[in-house]
C-alpha cells in the first residue's frame, strides 16, 4: 500500500493550486456577492484543460484520471466552492455519462466540446416532486418520428444558465417505473427548451442554479443516451461518480477553511497572546485537520477505485457523507475561532460556511449516502 502521489499528480496539484490562488481566489467574494456565473473563469478553466481532466486526448481531454480530477475540484474549492462545483457538475454529471454511455456520434459531437471546455454541461434529474425520491419523475418523452418530444420542468440545476448541453432524465414509459426512465442529450437551442429563473441560494451563489423548462421540446432520436429504459440506471451511476466530485468540493472547502483559520489565529491577539497559543485553538484545529485528512483518504480512495475500474459506489457514498459533514462542521468551528470577524462578509469564512452546507444535500443527501452504504452492507 502506497499513500504517496505520483510525480505527475504532484505537478498537477501544483498547477491546480497556482491556478486557484491566482485566478479563482481573487474574485471568489465577488462571484458570491453578485451571484453571477464566472464566465471569464470558465474560459480560463477550459484553456488549461480543467474541464476534461479524465478524458482521452482524442475527445479533447487531458488524459489524466479521476484522482487528478478530484484534486482539481479540491484545490479550486479551497478558495471558491462555487467554482469547484462548476467543474464538478460539468465533468461528472454531463461529460461522464456521455463518455460512459454515448455513441461514437454523441462522443464526437458533445464530449469533444465538453472535454475541451468549449461547452459547459449540466445534468437534470431533480423535479419539484422528485428529489431524494428520484423515481417520481414527471417529465415525459414521447417518440415522434425521428424525434422525442419532451415535456416537463426540472429544478435546482447546477450550471443551468451557463450550459450549452444538458443530460435530461425523462419518462418514456410511465408504466415501468424507474425502468421507464430514459436519458437524453439536450442542447440549449433545441426548440421548446428554455432556462427558467435563477434560484437565490444560501451558498455556492456563482453556480447559476435554475429551472429547466421543456414545452414540446424536440430532441432527435440520435440524442437518446443509452437505450430506452436505461435512464434511471445511467442517472444513478452518474451520481456515484458525481459524489467523488462533491466529496472533493467538501474536502476543499474544509481544508480552505482550516488554512485561513490557521493564518488568522496566528495573527489575532487576545489577553496579550496570539489565540493560536491557547490550547483550545490548538486542539480544535488538530481535530479538524485530522478529520480532513480522513476525508481526503476516503475521497482519493474512491477516485482511485474508479480509475482502476472497480466498483466504487459505496466508497464514493462514504467519501461524500464524511467529507460533506466534515465541511459543514469544520467551517462552523473555524468561523467560531474567527469570533465576531468571522460573521463579517469581509472575511471568507462566512462564505465557506454557507458554501459547505449544500454538500450535505445535493447529489444525494447524507441520508441517501447512508442508504447506499447500508445497502452495500446487506442491511436492508
Amino acid at each position, binding site marked *: 500500500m502506497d499513500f504517496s502521489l*505520483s*510525480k505527475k499528480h504532484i*505537478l498537477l496539484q501544483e498547477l491546480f493550486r497556482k491556478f486557484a490562488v491566482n485566478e479563482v481566489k481573487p474574485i471568489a467574494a465577488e462571484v458570491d456577492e453578485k451571484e453571477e456565473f464566472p464566465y471569464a473563469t470558465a474560459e480560463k478553466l477550459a484553456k*488549461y*484543460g*480543467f474541464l*476534461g481532466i479524465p478524458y482521452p486526448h482524442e475527445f479533447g481531454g487531458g*488524459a*489524466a484520471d479521476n484522482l487528478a480530477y478530484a484534486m482539481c475540484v479540491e484545490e479550486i474549492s479551497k478558495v471558491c466552492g462555487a467554482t469547484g462545483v462548476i467543474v464538478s457538475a460539468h465533468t461528472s454529471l454531463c461529460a461522464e455519462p456521455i463518455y460512459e454511455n454515448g455513441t461514437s456520434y454523441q462522443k464526437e459531437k458533445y464530449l469533444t466540446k465538453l472535454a475541451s471546455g468549449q461547452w459547459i454541461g449540466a445534468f437534470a434529474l431533480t423535479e419539484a416532486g422528485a428529489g431524494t425520491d428520484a423515481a417520481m419523475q414527471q417529465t415525459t418523452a414521447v417518440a415522434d418520428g425521428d424525434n422525442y418530444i419532451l415535456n416537463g420542468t426540472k429544478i435546482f440545476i447546477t450550471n443551468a444558465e451557463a450550459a450549452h448541453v444538458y443530460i435530461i432524465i425523462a419518462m418514456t414509459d410511465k408504466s415501468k417505473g424507474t425502468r421507464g426512465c430514459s436519458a437524453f442529450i439536450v442542447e440549449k437551442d433545441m426548440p421548446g427548451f428554455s432556462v427558467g429563473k435563477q434560484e437565490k441560494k444560501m451558498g455556492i451563489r456563482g453556480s447559476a442554479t435554475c429551472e429547466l423548462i421543456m414545452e414540446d421540446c424536440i430532441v432527435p432520436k440520435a440524442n437518446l443516451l443509452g437505450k430506452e429504459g436505461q435512464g434511471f440506471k445511467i442517472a444513478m451511476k452518474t451520481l456515484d461518480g458525481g459524489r467523488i466530485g462533491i466529496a472533493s468540493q467538501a474536502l476543499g472547502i474544509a481544508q480552505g477553511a482550516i488554512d485561513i483559520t490557521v493564518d488568522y489565529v496566528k495573527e489575532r491577539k487576545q489577553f496579550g497572546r496570539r489565540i493560536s497559543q491557547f490550547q483550545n485553538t490548538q486542539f480544535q484545529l488538530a481535530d479538524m485537520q485530522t478529520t480532513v485528512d480522513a476525508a481526503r483518504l476516503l475521497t482519493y480512495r474512491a477516485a482511485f477505485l474508479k480509475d482502476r475500474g472497480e466498483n466504487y459506489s459505496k466508497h464514493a457514498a462514504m467519501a461524500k457523507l464524511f467529507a460533506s459533514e466534515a465541511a459543514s462542521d469544520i467551517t462552523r468551528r473555524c468561523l467560531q475561532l474567527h469570533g465576531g470577524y468571522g460573521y463579517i462578509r469581509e472575511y471568507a469564512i462566512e462564505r465557506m460556511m454557507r458554501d459547505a452546507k449544500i454538500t450535505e444535500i445535493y447529489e444525494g443527501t447524507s441520508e441517501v449516502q447512508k442508504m447506499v452504504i447500508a445497502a452495500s452492507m446487506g442491511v436492508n
Partner: protein
Amino acid sequence: MKIFVCIKQVPDTNEVKLNPETGTLIRDGVPSIINPDDLCGIEAALSIKDQCGAHVSVITMGPPQADVALREALAMGCDEAFLVSDRVFGGADTWATSKTLAGALQMLGYDLIITGRQAIDGDTAQVGPQIAEHLGIPQVTYAEEITMEPGQDAMVVKRQYEDRYQMIKIKLPALVTVLSSLNTPRYMSVGGVVGAYDDKAVRVLTYEDIQDFVAQKDIGLKGSPTRVKKSFTKTAKAKGTLHEVPDDDAVRIIIDKLKEKYVL
C-alpha cells in the same frame, strides 16, 4: 528555428538561509521552483513558437531532482528537455557552469538561446552572458521586449536600463537574457503535465556525452576559479528609535541624525 531556454531550479524563498558552519544553502523543507526570470524566458520562447513556429528546448545543469523543473517546462509547452547532470559537474561556479552549458548547447545546435537575467539564489547574472562569450555569439541582456524580424534571422530587443532603454537589432544565432517584466508566464496545462510524464522524456547528458565540447579542466569544482570567502545570513540591524513629534521637529531630528552620520 531551434530555441534553447536555460533554466535553473532554485529554492522558493526570498530569504535564502545558510548553514553558518559550512556556508552552504539550507535546502531542507524549502520547495524548489523554476527561477522566476527563467520562467519568463520559457514564456518568451513559447510566444515566439506561437507566433512564428519554433522548436523549443529547455536545458538545465543540476542534480537529478532538477528533473521536475524540466517537466514543468515541458508541461508549459516546451518540446524537448535536457538535464546536464553528472557528479563531475558538482561544485561548479558560474564559469564552470557556463562552460559546461555552452559545451552542451554547441553539441545540440541552436539559433537562439534565452536565459533569465539572474537566479534568485545566486543573483550573479553571469551565466547567460558567459555562455554567449564561450560560444562567440552576440548577446543582449535585460530584455524587456523581443520582436522577431520577418525571415527569422534577426530580432529587435528592447534592453532595459534604470533610466532608459535601448532598441537593439541582433542577428541570430544570439543569446538574450530576459527580465521578469517581459511577460507573464503561462500556466502548465493538464494535458501538458500528462504529456510531460507519459509522452516526453528528459534526456540526461553526462560529461561523457559532451566531452568533445568542454574540457575536463573547465568543469566542476576544479574548473571553478571562484573561491567563496564567507557566506552568512544577514542579521537584523539595531531597532530604530521612534519619535512621536510634530512634523517640524521630525524634520530637525532627521537632519541632525543625517549630519551625525555624515550623510549631509
